[in-house]
């Protein structure tokens, strides 16, 4: 029994490590020199192997052992990291994940044939990276062939004047390749003003050795240009870039500006090179060269003795030491912040659920106590219970806070999805994430993954056009999928957007007509038309791909989200893009409610949705008896009589009130007898038997022990609005007949 528990710990731990491994691997794709990431990947494999051995999971140990060996070689710099290796390691990670999943399903399971075959294939691929293979990597070959120019160094590492300083050494083959060195300098002069040029003939060999077809020239140029940045200057030499040595140092006055830019960059970039590139003080090409050089040096020296990237950059005279210092300071800050974030305690989810349940019971018991205290008319007791209920409220809030998790982790998983799917589809698509720190209930986060996955895939497959089409429409060839999350009046909005072709209103309308979902005379708003794609078996895609287009899916998405008491809507502009908005309740357990009475029954609406309460006076009561809408300060407010809606048979009360509720920008009124004020509502789900009831989303227990129903405000608003529209349509029809 205890061993089983330990095995569960192992499974959870492995999954976390694999997740971290994936993140680091994806990170390596953009910055292949991140030593911390390589170490983290190695450690993940190492720990999985070590712990797997404790449980006698030989399959995992044997496979992970090979992966670990390869990673060890990567770590020591024997194997260079590149796209192919990262892709292979990602597959290996998936394979280990699969093995762990199998163990989780059945701890005695043996891998089936298919799994085994995958494993063998991966092992074969890994073998090429293992020790004993050819050591001569392509990098060290180029290292030797790279021209080492022994020429006069530039006057100084720093630039005192207010001009750009450009050191230029042409390669020997420049003339043979048909380039005219002077043409570049003339071109440079067009962009600004060349202040000073020094020609360096030092590389010129003695006459017998000289080849008249080779170029031996070097130049030191002082250049002044308004609004010119480093990349632009580098661009001048684009055609000879691979065949010359180029150093560009910015004017002195720019250093301050760069330092400021570095400090203003967002916190999350922690690679030195990236910081400098982002601030504009270093070009991508210069960074790549420096990283390359660092790799060569690493191979030559041992790991520790190899110089740091910052030192290389300064030595190569591509950035000033001040800037490197500023970037290093910034990097340290970002790392410290990161370390602080990871102070976590792991708790089992069911313990937390139990706590929330108990807090729920406490809220109900507290309400009962306050009620009794009110009846006794004892001021001291009254005071004590009100302190108690304030504390209960605080405990409730902090208990619920424990269940809140950031949506970022769910979002980050899509980096991999977008990368893989875009490769499958042959489209160039990036992912941008916003609002990753937005918090929502853990149970909601767990259930939102699948619908989001579907929407993201849909966007990539159908939303974003092929590169040619995008170019024709004047958009960047690279498509983007956005994930965004934010809070909005008591609910959380998660958006999945793309900058693709958008929905075709006419096509959807025609398809819906054909399927008989609507009639031709119906006058629908854009949002309503787009909403039709959530109907079952609805698909306008001409071609079914293996990702989407079969017409199942969007209705499943909607059903999943409605099961979480959420709603979904689409906004789209043809040619510009589509955004799907998912609106979800903040929590599923305890909410602040507003209690109202109709006849003998009590009802609760979430307090966040209540806009205002107004009295329905005698005149309005008579007037509104037929029409079901009133004039609220000049706007039409449709309303529902809860008395009629729930067929309450008791005597009509003397006074009635309207509670104005709002959801997703729509307003409606609920007519009730009595307003009873705020109430902490512990949501109890309705039994299966009542699952189909429209207009009720759950129930709760009052302090007196009675049951109150929680109203499903979105459904009621829709009902009020649609009845309103029907009435309007009817009256229009009457006019035509008349």
């Amino acid at each position, binding site marked *: 029994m205890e*061993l089983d528990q*330990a*095995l569960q710990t*192992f499974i959870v731990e492995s999954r976390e490590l694999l997740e971290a491994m994936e993140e680091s691997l994806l990170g390596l794709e953009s910055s292949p020199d991140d030593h911390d990431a390589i170490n*983290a990947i190695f450690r993940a494999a*190492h*720990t999985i*192997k*070590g712990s797997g*051995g404790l449980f006698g999971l030989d399959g995992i140990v044997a496979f992970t052992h090979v992966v670990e060996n390869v990673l060890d070689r990567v770590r020591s710099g024997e194997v260079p990291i590149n796209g192919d290796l990262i892709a292979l390691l990602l597959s290996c990670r998936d394979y280990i994940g699969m093995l762990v999943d199998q163990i989780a399903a059945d701890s005695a399971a043996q891998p089936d044939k298919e799994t085994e075959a995958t494993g063998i294939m991966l092992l074969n691929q890994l073998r090429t990276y293992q020790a004993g293979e050819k050591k001569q990597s392509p990098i060290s070959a180029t290292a030797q062939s790279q021209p080492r120019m022994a020429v006069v160094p530039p006057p100084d590492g720093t630039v005192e004047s207010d001009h750009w300083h450009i050191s230029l050494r042409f390669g020997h083959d420049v003339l043979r390749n048909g380039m005219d060195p002077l043409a570049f300098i003339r071109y440079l002069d067009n962009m600004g003003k060349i202040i000073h040029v020094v020609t360096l003939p030092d590389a010129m060999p003695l006459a017998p050795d000289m080849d008249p077809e080779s170029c031996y020239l070097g130049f030191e140029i002082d250049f002044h240009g308004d609004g010119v940045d480093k990349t632009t200057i580098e661009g001048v030499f684009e055609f000879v870039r691979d065949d010359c040595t180029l150093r560009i140092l910015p004017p002195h006055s720019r250093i301050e500006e760069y330092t400021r830019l570095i400090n203003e960059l967002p916190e999350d970039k922690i690679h030195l090179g990236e910081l400098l590139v982002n601030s504009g003080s270093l070009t991508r090409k210069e960074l790549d060269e420096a990283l390359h050089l660092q790799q060569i040096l690493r191979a030559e020296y041992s790991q520790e003795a190899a110089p740091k990237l910052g030192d290389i950059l300064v030595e190569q005279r591509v950035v000033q030491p001040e800037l490197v210092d500023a970037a290093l300071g910034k990097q340290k800050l970002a790392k410290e912040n990161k370390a602080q974030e990871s102070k976590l305690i792991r708790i089992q989810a069911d313990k937390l659920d139990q706590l929330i349940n108990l807090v729920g019971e406490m809220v109900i018991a507290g309400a009962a106590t306050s009620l009794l205290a009110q009846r006794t008319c004892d001021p001291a007791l009254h005071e004590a219970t009100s302190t108690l209920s304030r504390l209960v409220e605080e405990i409730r809030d902090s208990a619920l806070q424990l269940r809140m998790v950031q949506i970022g982790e769910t979002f980050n998983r899509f980096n991999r999805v977008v990368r893989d799917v875009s490769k499958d589809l042959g489209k160039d698509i990036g992912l941008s994430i916003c609002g990753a720190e937005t918090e929502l209930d853990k149970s909601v986060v767990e259930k939102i993954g699948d619908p989001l996955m579907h929407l993201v895939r849909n966007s990539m497959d159908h939303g974003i056009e092929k590169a040619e089409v995008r170019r024709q429409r004047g958009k960047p060839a690279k498509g983007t999928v956005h994930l965004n999350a934010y809070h909005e009046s008591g609910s959380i909005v998660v958006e999945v957007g793309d900058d693709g072709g958008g929905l075709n209103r006419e096509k959807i309308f025609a398809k819906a007509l054909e399927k008989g979902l609507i009639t031709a005379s119906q006058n629908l708003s854009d949002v309503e038309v787009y909403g039709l794609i959530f109907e079952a078996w609805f698909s306008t895609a001409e071609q079914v791909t293996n990702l989407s287009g079969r017409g199942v899916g969007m209705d499943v998405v909607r059903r999943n989200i409605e099961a979480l008491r959420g709603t979904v809507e689409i906004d789209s502009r043809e040619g510009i893009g589509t955004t799907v908005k998912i609106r979800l309740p903040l929590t599923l357990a305890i909410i602040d409610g507003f209690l109202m009475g109709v006849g003998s029954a009590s009802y609760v609406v979430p307090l966040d949705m209540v806009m205002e309460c107004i009295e329905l006076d005698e005149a309005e009561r008579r007037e509104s008896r037929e029409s079901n809408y009133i004039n609220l300060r000049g706007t039409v407010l449709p309303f529902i009589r809860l008395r009629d809606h729930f067929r309450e048979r008791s005597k009509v009360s003397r006074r009635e009130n309207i509670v104005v509720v709002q959801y997703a920008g729509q307003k409606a009124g609920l007519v009730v007898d009595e307003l009873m004020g705020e109430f902490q509502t512990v949501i109890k789900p309705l039994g299966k038997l009542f699952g189909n009831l429209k207009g009720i989303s759950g129930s709760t227990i009052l302090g007196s022990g009675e049951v109150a129903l929680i109203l499903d405000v979105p459904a009621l608003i829709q009902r009020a609005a649609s009845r309103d529209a029907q009435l309007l349509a009817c009256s229009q029809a009457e006019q035509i007949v008349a």
Partner: protein
Amino acid sequence: MTKTIMLVDDSDSLRHLVRIVLEGEGYGLIEACDGCDALSKLNGRKVHLIISDINMPNMDGLTFVKAVRNLPDHKFAPIIMLTTNHHEASRKEAREAGVKAWMVKPFDKLQLLEMVSRFAMP
């Protein structure tokens, strides 16, 4: 009196297993997930034995062992390494830092108990 053992390893599942074995025999356990964590937990406590992994984030096992040797309170605390690391160099380094024994994962329950009872301070 129960003897207190400190266990330093970044793997939850390994700590879980060792805990089952050692607590079953009546030892008290302090767990830490890396060298830094362990050092902060050592502060002001008496431990009879330290069991540590080598390959860990933040602070690795060898650095941790050397740091322990510099703490006046724990200068003579016996240390066992429990690790997968086979390199002779790190073994030598560990021996020089005063590590008493070296166990290779996956460990055997009886062997672990035997080691612990042999080395734990009276």
